[in-house]
């Protein structure tokens, strides 16, 4: 289980997170929502170690991760799909996927077939460079790549961005399948409300760097939650 306990995060002088606490239990899908610029990505950066926190604690399965480098978190089982895809532009699709071999045991250094089942386009484009793919294809590659590391918790930042509707449905199904079959924890940042509502076991809403609402997915439709999501 991932626990984020009362963290602050600063960019220079500007504070992006203020005392944020969330938990993401194993075998559950936890969803974070919020308007643009409220700090969702910053929260995920704190979890994956891409940005230092200035206060608070981040623990995963009883290991305190504060101060731990991202690669060590990846070795603990934190898999990350960042906003903006960030595929390696000059590596081929195949090499992008293989870059996920780093934290896994030798016997697991292969690309699981499910990934290709989920995103068939990747299989047909193994030799193409990541940077040449279309936006949506890159997004698929980014998800596939994270799965290669066999994560125990999958952290996704707006994974549906730029993806065609049919594949969004597939991704939804895949996330559920991953939760149910492997029991991994899933921490999902989303704007796409319907997608969240359908998938999430538990939701948080952020505003101005703080958690302003939490509850089961159904509570998303309360007026109080709505207020935080409209302009």
């Amino acid at each position, binding site marked *: 289980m991932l626990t984020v306990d009362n963290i602050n995060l600063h960019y220079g002088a500007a504070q992006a997170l203020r005392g944020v606490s969330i938990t993401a239990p194993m075998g559950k899908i936890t969803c974070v929502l919020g*308007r*643009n610029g409220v700090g969702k*990505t910053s929260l995920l950066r704190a979890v994956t170690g891409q940005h230092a926190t200035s206060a608070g604690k981040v623990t995963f399965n009883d290991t305190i991760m504060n101060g731990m480098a991202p690669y060590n978190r990846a070795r603990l089982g934190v898999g990350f799909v960042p906003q903006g895809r960030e595929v390696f532009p000059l590596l081929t699709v195949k090499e992008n996927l293989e870059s996920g071999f780093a934290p896994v045991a030798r016997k697991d250094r292969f690309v699981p077939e499910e990934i290709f089942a989920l995103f068939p386009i990747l299989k047909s484009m193994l030799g193409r460079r990541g940077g040449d793919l*279309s*936006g949506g294809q890159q997004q698929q590659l980014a998800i596939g790549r994270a799965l290669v590391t066999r994560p125990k918790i999958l952290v996704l930042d707006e994974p549906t961005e*730029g993806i065609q509707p049919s594949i969004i449905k597939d991704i939804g199904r895949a996330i559920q399948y991953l939760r149910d079959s492997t029991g991994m924890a899933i921490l999902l940042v989303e704007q796409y409300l319907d997608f969240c509502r359908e998938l999430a076991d538990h939701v948080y809403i952020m505003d101005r760097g703080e958690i302003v609402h939490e509850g089961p997915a159904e509570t998303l439709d309360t007026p109080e939650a709505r207020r935080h999501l409209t302009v």
Partner: protein
Amino acid sequence: MDQKITNSLLYLDGVSVSFDGFKALNSLSFVVAPGELRAIIGPNGAGKTTMMDIITGKTRPDTGTVYFDGQIDLTKKDEADIAQLGIGRKFQKPTVFESHTVWDNIELALNRKRGVFATLFYTLTPADKARIEEILETVRMTARKDHLAGSLSHGQKQWLEIGMLLAQEPKLLLVDEPVAGMTDAETTETAILLKEIAKTRSVVVVEHDMGFIRDLGVKVTCLAEGSVLAEGSIDFVSNDPKVIENYLGR
């Protein structure tokens, strides 16, 4: 045929382009009338962004014709020419000038003379100032006008880029996935904004958000594998079995 060219604002015919043997556009034909708002959907990798690259001069087609505003052959022009002709673009991945403030980003985009000396001797007139303020208001960035664009969040950059597009006052706007990463409420706002804009100019918008497309309520073109798969009203297109098969899914 000629008639069709002259009556259209943008006219693509038989456009093909391939990368290392992969055909990204396959004899694509596509026409936008003056004052038209057109939505484009299509599977990932269908060639939507590539089409915009062709129109804006970033990529040269292997074959095919691209005309703008009557007889202007866009394949002979470069990016700056095309922008000056009045074609503005918002990129799929938001690109802004990170070390300029939000205000300067808009100011640079403003549709004024763009020569070396014109910019060297440019002074900000009250009219220009008012215009910039108006745009900032529209994209709700007034409070952040002095922030460096590099410090904006992903969605904020999207908005800034829309603002820059407005400042350009183009005849034709090409908008690549404007609502990606926006909340539902903002998506609705954006639809309203685009419809407003389309009253005075033509807009081509690429999106995967079907709700948004529906909000726009305009003619929809669905691309697949580099050419047009279906074209018509949103209901017509979304009921097309090929579109469902290739794009919407079941």
